[in-house]
């Protein structure tokens, strides 16, 4: 497609600017900022109409970031920890839209743990991005539930608790698309985001996204430098849109291919050992090894394209529910007679 992208316009005739939002109020260098930028690029590159995306978020720096991209997409910036329930109800309004949720580690793993677990359980069609910095940025840096045990911060002291691992939680909850990325590695984020956009159920993407104001110590996870030094990709991941030829020359030996419902493909090129992304057990083992080795393992841990999404389960009409005419949602006059008949 790259060819018909002359004069900065993509296939749907939009420039990159059409995908931007209000000026950012995040701190300079905030990890969330680079995620925002990748969302903009990806939507532009995938030729997505902004009107076909709907954004959801909770409360936090991460959660307010949706104001800074896709200004032409509807958005609901809700309550702290409650993004998943808002999204769950809203996806029924127009199931043809692509729903994206933006949350933080506090928003998801602290106050939001319950809704996080249950939105995965229901396999709600939602790209769920956790912008994970180990602290509560917007309230000035308290430890969140994903902060490492033993992490020491000037104003906060030492964190005595074991961290919540977003990916481990996602696997335990049978999420159907589970990935981890790092704000410092934008190329991978882009490919993972693209793949997630083609997934039918929930895609959970844990993005380690440093908070430069409160948690960016070189020696600690959640910092840029630690991430840069310790990131190891499970595989080299490339997304191939529907109806597009696989450009790389595909080599069965070192590559695996996953075909998505929309016909797009994910090409996984082995790095080091092979990982079977259809196996939750394998994914958990990877996590455990990564913990032992003290590395930041990124990539697509697990995918399941078979589980029906919540929308499938509820068997709703093809036409968006929010466009059904009054006649189609109010039963007939005859119906009220029948009901009266039925009653004793």
């Amino acid at each position: 497609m790259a060819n018909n992208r002359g004069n900065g316009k993509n296939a749907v005739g939009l420039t990159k600017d059409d995908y931007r939002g209000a000026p950012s109020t995040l701190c300079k260098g905030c990890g969330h900022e680079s995620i925002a930028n990748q969302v903009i690029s990806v939507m532009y590159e995938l030729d997505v109409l902004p009107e076909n995306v709907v954004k959801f978020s909770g409360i936090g720096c991460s959660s307010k970031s949706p104001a800074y991209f896709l200004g032409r997409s509807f958005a609901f910036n809700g309550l702290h920890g409650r993004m998943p329930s808002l999204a769950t109800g809203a996806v029924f309004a127009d199931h043809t839209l692509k729903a994206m949720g933006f949350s933080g580690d506090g928003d998801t793993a602290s106050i939001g743990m319950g809704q996080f677990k249950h939105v995965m359980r229901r396999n709600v069609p939602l790209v769920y991005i956790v912008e994970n910095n180990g602290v509560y940025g917007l309230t000035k840096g308290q430890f969140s539930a994903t902060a490492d045990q033993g992490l020491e911060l000037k104003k906060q002291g030492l964190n005595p608790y074991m961290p919540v691992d977003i990916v481990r939680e996602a696997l335990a909850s049978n999420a159907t698309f589970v990935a981890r990325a790092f704000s410092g590695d934008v190329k991978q984020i882009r490919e993972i985001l693209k793949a997630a956009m083609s997934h039918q159920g929930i895609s959970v993407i844990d993005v380690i996204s440093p908070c430069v104001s409160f948690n960016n110590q070189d020696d600690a996870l959640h910092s840029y430098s630690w991430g840069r030094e310790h990131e190891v990709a499970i595989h080299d991941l490339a997304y191939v849109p529907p109806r597009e030829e696989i450009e790389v020359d595909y080599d069965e030996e070192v590559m695996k291919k996953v075909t998505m419902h929309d016909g797009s493909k994910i090409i996984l090129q082995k790095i080091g050992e092979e990982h079977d992304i259809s196996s939750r057990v394998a994914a958990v083992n990877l996590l455990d090894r990564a913990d032992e080795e003290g590395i930041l393992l990124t990539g697509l841990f697990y995918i399941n394209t078979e589980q029906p999404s919540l929308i499938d389960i509820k068997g709703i009409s093809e036409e968006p529910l929010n466009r059904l005419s009054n006649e189609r949602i109010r039963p007939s006059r005859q119906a009220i007679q029948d009901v009266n008949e039925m009653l004793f």
Partner: protein
Amino acid sequence: MSESSAVSAGIANQDQVVNDFSITIGTVNGSGSQTSNLTIMRSIFKMGIPVSGKNIYPSNIQGMPTWYTIRVSKDGYLGRVPEPDIVIAMCPESFEEDVNRLPPGGVLIYDQGIRKEVGREDIIRYPLPVQKLVRASDTPRNLRDYVANMVYVGALVNFLNLDIDKVRQALEYHFSGREKPVSINYQVIQSAAEWCAANIEKVDPYRLESMEVTKKYKLVNGNEAAAIGAAFGGVQFVGWYPITPATGLADMLKVYLPKLRKDPETGRNTFAIVQAEDELAAIGMAIGAGWGGLRSMTSTSGPGLSLMAEFVGLAYFSETPLVVWDVQRVGPSTGLPTRTSQGDVIMAHYLGHGDTQNVLLFPGSAYECFEFGWKSFDLAERLQTPIFVLSDLDLGVNQWITEEFEYPDVEMDRGKVLWEEDLEELGGEWGRYLDVDGDGIPYRTVPGNKHPKSAWFARGTGHDAYARYSEDPEDFRQNMERLQKKYETARTLVPEPVIDEVEGAEIGILAYGSTDSAVQEAQDYLQDKGIPADYLRLRAIPFTSSVREFVKNHRRIYVVEMNRDGQVHKLLSLEVPEETHKLVSVAKVDGLPLEAEWILGEIINVEGK
């Protein structure tokens, strides 16, 4: 002066007492007694006689005493009465208690298998050999425990002339026509009736006689009526979490929506029902759906309502339409989960921190549960705000006589929604929170709108008229004042009260919800006592002008409600500051539906006659 004492007087000189008495049935819960009780109530109803049945049950599943009170009233009084004329005692644990409920001359029908002394000579006693009769019937062993309670149905067939054909009808309805259970139960009833006829001499005065009164009516509980109403209101999304006594509402939606709401064109669902993981998620989903442009609702009770506080504030401030059914039970806290109250009014009205004022509807009958079931969506979408429908356990779970449901008499009002063509006309010029029409109600767009100017950013934070983030003091103040104006607009849209005026009344009674039947009865007694009283049945908050009028035009207003603090009395006081001296709070909550006699007593105490 009360019905029932009139009755016991009647006993003395053995007159017949026809269609005017009450029965309390004490059984063990989870023992199938519900079927027997409903069967009795339904058959009486089908005999054309006004009747009410109230379940007084424990918060547990099986093995505890539970009571069912049936009131038969040719005059159509269907509220609770303080003492029964007839007691059916089938529960060993509550036996004494139940026997002692009877006034002298009352009738005791009991399972003689219960190894306890009746110990009262001043009442009429009909012992039933329940086990014997059940064993005699050819009921399969495993079902015997369940049919045992049919024996007292049979007894009433004999003693009260309960029409056995109507009993069969009731059974057929209950078992949706399945022959086997119907005949098994019917057979036990019949043999029990025959045994009584053969072995017990009737010495009590109570009798049932067919009437015409209820012929054109139906029996339904408020939760089922609400579900039917919602179905005809076009509900498209339901997020809910189980809680007594609201569960039945969602259960009925699960029954009716698949029946009534398949898309006529595609046969697919035009709705979705999601059982959430808790009430925060339930209302969160409902708000998401309402924001998305769906007719959306949730149903809960007190504890769930408390959990919804933060989300309600978001809906109020982001101006998202949704309907919240609160089937009230007794609080505070977990309180009495299986008992009725009207204790959530103030909470619901002010729910959410900061300045909030929520719109409340008070259905006063099963019919209004149906009616508000659909109307509430029109209001929610018109006003772009959460609408609270405050039902209660008595209304929600008990069977009520109702007229047949009528098809909504107005077109659906989907409120101020702009679609692509509208935005075209406006050249994309619009503001989500602009008060264009001067009624405080702005216009909105919903996701899926493909116009490049359609999108807006919904939030619970401060915003200007164009939904942009704003901390500007003026923006905030103006927005809050518009919300205030919108609330005043609501005042003109909510259902008017129902006013029943009587000749020469100087005082008025103001009540709402499930207490209606008791209040009507009290009103008649007052009339008898020469204290004519008008009766205003409130159906919504904000109060409409006619409520102020009513207060203005009466010397004194008795605000009758089922809570401790006189919650509507308080809210009304704030509405008519210059007339608060007229308002008398008549409030009580103990888990039981109010009795006409108690209301009467309270009013007479003040009026002093």
